[in-house]
C-alpha cells in the first residue's frame, strides 16, 4: 500500500464528514427511528399574554392513537413544570396558569406517530383570557407598563456596566467632536435548516435516560438535567446525552427548550422512546432569538480624527425570561469588546435587560456572545465620526487602529488583545478591492445621480471562551477537552467535549493531531457529542472549538508524544535526551536510520513497553485557555442602490480575515463564505418583529427571508496570518468572524452611498422599502 499522507496543519484536506452528508447518510435527530418510538407534539398559545382558564383534553384523547395529553399541572407533580435558564432565570416548561409569549408551549400530546400527535394537538381546547401585552422594551420600562413576570418586581431584569463612567464622561465633556446615533440591532433567528428536536429513551429497567438531542453543548446539558432532576433520582451517571449530526447550530442549539423536558417526562412515564421535533414555525417563533439590542452610541474625538472616548447605552430585550446563552457572569456577553480595533483611552458601556412578551433569549446568532452587536455599533460609529471629521473611513481607521507593536494590548474595557495587525488587513483589503479607483468611480457616479457606496468594517472579534478565572456557565468552567487513544496498529481515536454542527471538526481536529503525532489524519477517528464517551467539555459555540478543544488536541498529542519518546528510547536502547522528533518518528540524534516510527512505538506500547511503564498510548487534556483569542479582519463592500426600487445590490465584497494559523485553508474559506452569507442576510433581509398584540412576523421562510444562492453575492477572500501567541498552534477560530464583520461593511456602504443626501444611519435589515422611503424622503427616489 502506498504511504498515507499525514495531512497536518495547512493542508486543504477534504472534509471527511462530507462523505456522509453529501450522500444523504448523515444521522440527524429526525432520522432516528427507535423501535416502539412515540411522538410528541405541542399545543401552543395564540396569545402573547393570557391567562389559561381551562384546558380540555377529552376530544384530543379520543383521537385514535393519542396516548396522553400533559399540562403544567402534570409536570408540577414532579416539580419539573419550570426549569432554570442558563442565566439562572426561570423558564416554564409548561405553564400552570399563564402564557407569556405567542407560541409558548401550553400542553403536549403524545401519539403513536407525528400525524396522530398533530391531530391531538388540534383537538385540545384551551380557554384563554387575554392579558395586556408589552413587546417594546422601552414601553416595558415605563411606569404602569403591563408586568411580564408575576414573580418579579418589574420588567427590568438587570443593569450591567463596564468601564470607567466618570472618565468617559469627562472625555466626552472635553471632546472636540462627538457623534451620537441610536442603533437597533434587530431580533433575528438563526434559522438552522434542521430545527430542534430530540428522542428521549428511558430505560426503566436500568433507570437510565439516553437523550438524543440537537445540542451544541451535550455535557453541560447533562449536568443541567442532573441538577434539575436530581430530586427524582435521575443522577448524572444515569443520563447520557448524544448529539448526533447537527444541521446547523449557530447558537440556537445551546439552550434547553421545554420540548426536551416534555419528551423526557413522557418517555419516563411511558417507558417508550419519545421523539419531539419542531416544525419550522415552532423553531422560528418559540426558540431563543438572537440580538434585539437597542443601542444609544456616542463617540468622542479630536478634530484631527483621533478617537478619545466611547459611551454605549443599551436596552436589551430578553423576552419573557432571561434565557440568554452567555457565560454566567456576563449578562451582556462580550459586548464590552465594543472598543473594537481602535485605541480608545476611555470607554464605558452599560446594558439594561428587559422583560417583554416575546420568546425567551437571547442567544448569539453565529457570534461570540453579543460581539456582532458591539462590532456593528463601533464600525457604524467609526464611519459616522470619519465623515464628521472629514476623513476617508479607511484613513480614519488607519489613524485609530491599535498598532501591531501595542500587542498584547489592554483595552479600556479590560480585555487583553492577544495579537493583531489591523492596518495590514485593511491595506490588503483595499488593495484587493482597488479602493482608490472605487472612490473615483463613486465620485463620478454621484455626479451622474447614481448611488454607489463603499463600506468598510475593520472588526476585531473576541472568541474562545474562556479562561476559567472569568468564564463559566452555571459554575462550569469554560475549558474544553480532547482525549486521544492510539491503537496497537498506530491508528487512533480522539474525542472532544465540543460538537460540530457543520464546522468540520472530524476533519480539522484530526489534522491537528496528525501534525503533532505524525499519524496520518485519515487514520484518526474523531468523535464528539456523546457524554458517555467524550471527555467533559463546554461545547461548540462562540468560535471556541479551535481556541479551546483544538488547543486541547495539541496538548493531548504532546502528552502522547512524551510517552512515545520514552518507549522509543526503550526500543532504541537510547537515552530520551538523545532522541529527536521528526514528524512521525523519533530517531537517535546523528543516526537518522536508528529510528522508530509512531506506529512502531504504538505497537510497542501494547506489546513491548518498558517494564514498569503502564501499557497503552493515550492522553487527555482539559485545556484552560490562558486568554481569549482575537481574530480580526477588514471587509470592504461596494453597493449600488436602485433609485427605483430601493434595492441594495452588493457588487463587490472583499473579506480579508486573520484568524491566526489556518488548520485547513479550505475549511476556513468555507467558514468565511458561510459566515459572510449570514452577515449579508441580517444586513439586508432578516428580521423578526412583533405587532402590538405580540403576534410574530417572521415565523416562516416566506416572511423571514433567508438568502439563497440567488441572492448571495460573490465573495472575494484574502488572508493575513498573525498567530495567537498563547494558543499551542497559533490558531484563533474563524467560524463567526464573517457573520460578525459583514453587516457593518454593508450598512456603511449603504450610508456611504446616501451620505450626501444627509442620510447618517439606516438600521439593518436594509430592505428595499426602507431604502426607497429614505430616497423618497430626500427627494432622490425614482418614481414612475
Amino acid at each position: 500500500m502506498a504511504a498515507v499522507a499525514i495531512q497536518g496543519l495547512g493542508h486543504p484536506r477534504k472534509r471527511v464528514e462530507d462523505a456522509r452528508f453529501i450522500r444523504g447518510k448523515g444521522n440527524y435527530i429526525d432520522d432516528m427511528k427507535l423501535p416502539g418510538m412515540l411522538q410528541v407534539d405541542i399545543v401552543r398559545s395564540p396569545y402573547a399574554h393570557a391567562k389559561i382558564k381551562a384546558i380540555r383534553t377529552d376530544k384530543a384523547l379520543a383521537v385514535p392513537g393519542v396516548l396522553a395529553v400533559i399540562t403544567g399541572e402534570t409536570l408540577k407533580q414532579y416539580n419539573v413544570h419550570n426549569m432554570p435558564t442558563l442565566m439562572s432565570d426561570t423558564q416554564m416548561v409548561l405553564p400552570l396558569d399563564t402564557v407569556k409569549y405567542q407560541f409558548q408551549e401550553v400542553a403536549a400530546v403524545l401519539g403513536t406517530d407525528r400525524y396522530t400527535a398533530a391531530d391531538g394537538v388540534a383537538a385540545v381546547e384551551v380557554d384563554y383570557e387575554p392579558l395586556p401585552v408589552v413587546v417594546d422594551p422601552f414601553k416595558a420600562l415605563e411606569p404602569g407598563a403591563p408586568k411580564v413576570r408575576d414573580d418579579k418586581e418589574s420588567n427590568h431584569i438587570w443593569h450591567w456596566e463596564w468601564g470607567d463612567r466618570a472618565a468617559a464622561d469627562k472625555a466626552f465633556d472635553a471632546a472636540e467632536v462627538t457623534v451620537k446615533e441610536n442603533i437597533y440591532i434587530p431580533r433575528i433567528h438563526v434559522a438552522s435548516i434542521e430545527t430542534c428536536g430530540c428522542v428521549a429513551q428511558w430505560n426503566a429497567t436500568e433507570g437510565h435516560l439516553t437523550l438524543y438531542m440537537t445540542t451544541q453543548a451535550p455535557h453541560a446539558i447533562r449536568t443541567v438535567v442532573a441538577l434539575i432532576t436530581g430530586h427524582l433520582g435521575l443522577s448524572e451517571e444515569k443520563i447520557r446525552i448524544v448529539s448526533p449530526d447537527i444541521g446547523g447550530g449557530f447558537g440556537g442549539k445551546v439552550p434547553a427548550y421545554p420540548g426536551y423536558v416534555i419528551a423526557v417526562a413522557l418517555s419516563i412515564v411511558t417507558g417508550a422512546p419519545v421523539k419531539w421535533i419542531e416544525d419550522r414555525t415552532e423553531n422560528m417563533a418559540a426558540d431563543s432569538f438572537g440580538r434585539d439590542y437597542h443601542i444609544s452610541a456616542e463617540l468622542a474625538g479630536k478634530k484631527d480624527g483621533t478617537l478619545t472616548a466611547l459611551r454605549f447605552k443599551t436596552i436589551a430585550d430578553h423576552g419573557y425570561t432571561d434565557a440568554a446563552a452567555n457565560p454566567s457572569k456576563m449578562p451582556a456577553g462580550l459586548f464590552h469588546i465594543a472598543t473594537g480595533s481602535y485605541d480608545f483611552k476611555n470607554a464605558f458601556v452599560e446594558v439594561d435587560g428587559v422583560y417583554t412578551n416575546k420568546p425567551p433569549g437571547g442567544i448569539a446568532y453565529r457570534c461570540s456572545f453579543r460581539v456582532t452587536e458591539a462590532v456593528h455599533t463601533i464600525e457604524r460609529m467609526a464611519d459616522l465620526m470619519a465623515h464628521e471629521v472629514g476623513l476617508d473611513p479607511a484613513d480614519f481607521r488607519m489613524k485609530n487602529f491599535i498598532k501591531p507593536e501595542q500587542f498584547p494590548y489592554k483595552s479600556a474595557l479590560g480585555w487583553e488583545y492577544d495579537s493583531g495587525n489591523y492596518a495590514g488587513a485593511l491595506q490588503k483589503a483595499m488593495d484587493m478591492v482597488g479602493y482608490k479607483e472605487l472612490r473615483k468611480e463613486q465620485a463620478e457616479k454621484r455626479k451622474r445621480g447614481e448611488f454607489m457606496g463603499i463600506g468598510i468594517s475593520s472588526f476585531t472579534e473576541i472568541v474562545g471562551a474562556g479562561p476559567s478565572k472569568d468564564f463559566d456557565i452555571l459554575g462550569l468552567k469554560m475549558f474544553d477537552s480532547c482525549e486521544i487513544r492510539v491503537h496497537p496498529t498506530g491508528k487512533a481515536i480522539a474525542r472532544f467535549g465540543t460538537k460540530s454542527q457543520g464546522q468540520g471538526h472530524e476533519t480539522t481536529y484530526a489534522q491537528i493531531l496528525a501534525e503533532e503525532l505524525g499519524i496520518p489524519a485519515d487514520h484518526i477517528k474523531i468523535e464528539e457529542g456523546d457524554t458517555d464517551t467524550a471527555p467533559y467539555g463546554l461545547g461548540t459555540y462562540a468560535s471556541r472549538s479551535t481556541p479551546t478543544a483544538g488547543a486541547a488536541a495539541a496538548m493531548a498529542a504532546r502528552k502522547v508524544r512524551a510517552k512515545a519518546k520514552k518507549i522509543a528510547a526503550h526500543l532504541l536502547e537510547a537515552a530520551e535526551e538523545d532522541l529527536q522528533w521528526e514528524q512521525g518518528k523519533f530517531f537517535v540524534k546523528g543516526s537518522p536510520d536508528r529510528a522508530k516510527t509512531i506506529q512502531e512505538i504504538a505497537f510497542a506500547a501494547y506489546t513491548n513497553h518498558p517494564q514498569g511503564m503502564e501499557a497503552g498510548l493515550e492522553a487527555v487534556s482539559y485545556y484552560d485557555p490562558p486568554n481569549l483569542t482575537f481574530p480580526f479582519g477588514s471587509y470592504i463592500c461596494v453597493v449600488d442602490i436602485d433609485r427605483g426600487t430601493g434595492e441594495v445590490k452588493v457588487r463587490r465584497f472583499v473579506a480579508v480575515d486573520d484568524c491566526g494559523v489556518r488548520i485547513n485553508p479550505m475549511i476556513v474559506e468555507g467558514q468565511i463564505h458561510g459566515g459572510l452569507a449570514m452577515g449579508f442576510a441580517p444586513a439586508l433581509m432578516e428580521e423578526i418583529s412583533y405587532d402590538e398584540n405580540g403576534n410574530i412576523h417572521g415565523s416562516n421562510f416566506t416572511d423571514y427571508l433567508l438568502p439563497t444562492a440567488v441572492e448571495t453575492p460573490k465573495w472575494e477572500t484574502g488572508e493575513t496570518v498573525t498567530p495567537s501567541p498563547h494558543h499551542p498552534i497559533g490558531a484563533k477560530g474563524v467560524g463567526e468572524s464573517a457573520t460578525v464583520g459583514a453587516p457593518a461593511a454593508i450598512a456603511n456602504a449603504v450610508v456611504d452611498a446616501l451620505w450626501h443626501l444627509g442620510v447618517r444611519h439606516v438600521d439593518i435589515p436594509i430592505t428595499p422599502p426602507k431604502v426607497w422611503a429614505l430616497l423618497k424622503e430626500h427627494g432622490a427616489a425614482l418614481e414612475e
Partner: protein
Amino acid sequence: MQFAGTVTIDAPRAEVWKFLTDPHAVGRCAPGLESLEIVIPDKQFKAVAAVGFGSVSVKFSVDVEWVELDPPNRGKLKGRGSAPGSAVEGSSEMILRDLPNGSTDMDWSADVVVFGTIASLASRLMGSLTRRLTGDFFNCVKAKIEG
C-alpha cells in the same frame, strides 16, 4: 384591523334590520359557515366557520354577543373565536338610516384582531382577504334582502 363601509339596500329599514339581526338569515351569507346555534335569542349565538388564508385553513368557533341593540337603528356585537393555534377577537357595529327613496343605508364598521398562527402565517394576506370576504358578504346580504 379596522374596516368600515356603507351599503345601500333597496329595502325598508325594518326589513333590513330584521334580516341583519337574525343570525340564521345572515348566516346564509357568512363565508364558510358550518353551523350556527342561538344561545339566547337577540343576545348570544355561536357559529363555526372555516376560513382559508392562503395555504392555511382553519375552523373557528366563535361566540358572538349583541352588546347593543336599538331597533331598528343601531346594533353592535362583539365576538371571540378560537381555532387550533389561533384566536380572533372583534366587534362590529351597524347603523341603519332611511334613504329618501325607501332604501336603507347601512354604515358598518368592524374591528378585528387576530392572534396566533393565522396572525403570524397569514398576516400579509389578511387585508386583501378581508376586503374580498366583506365585499362578498354584503353583496349577498343585499341580494338576499332585495330578493
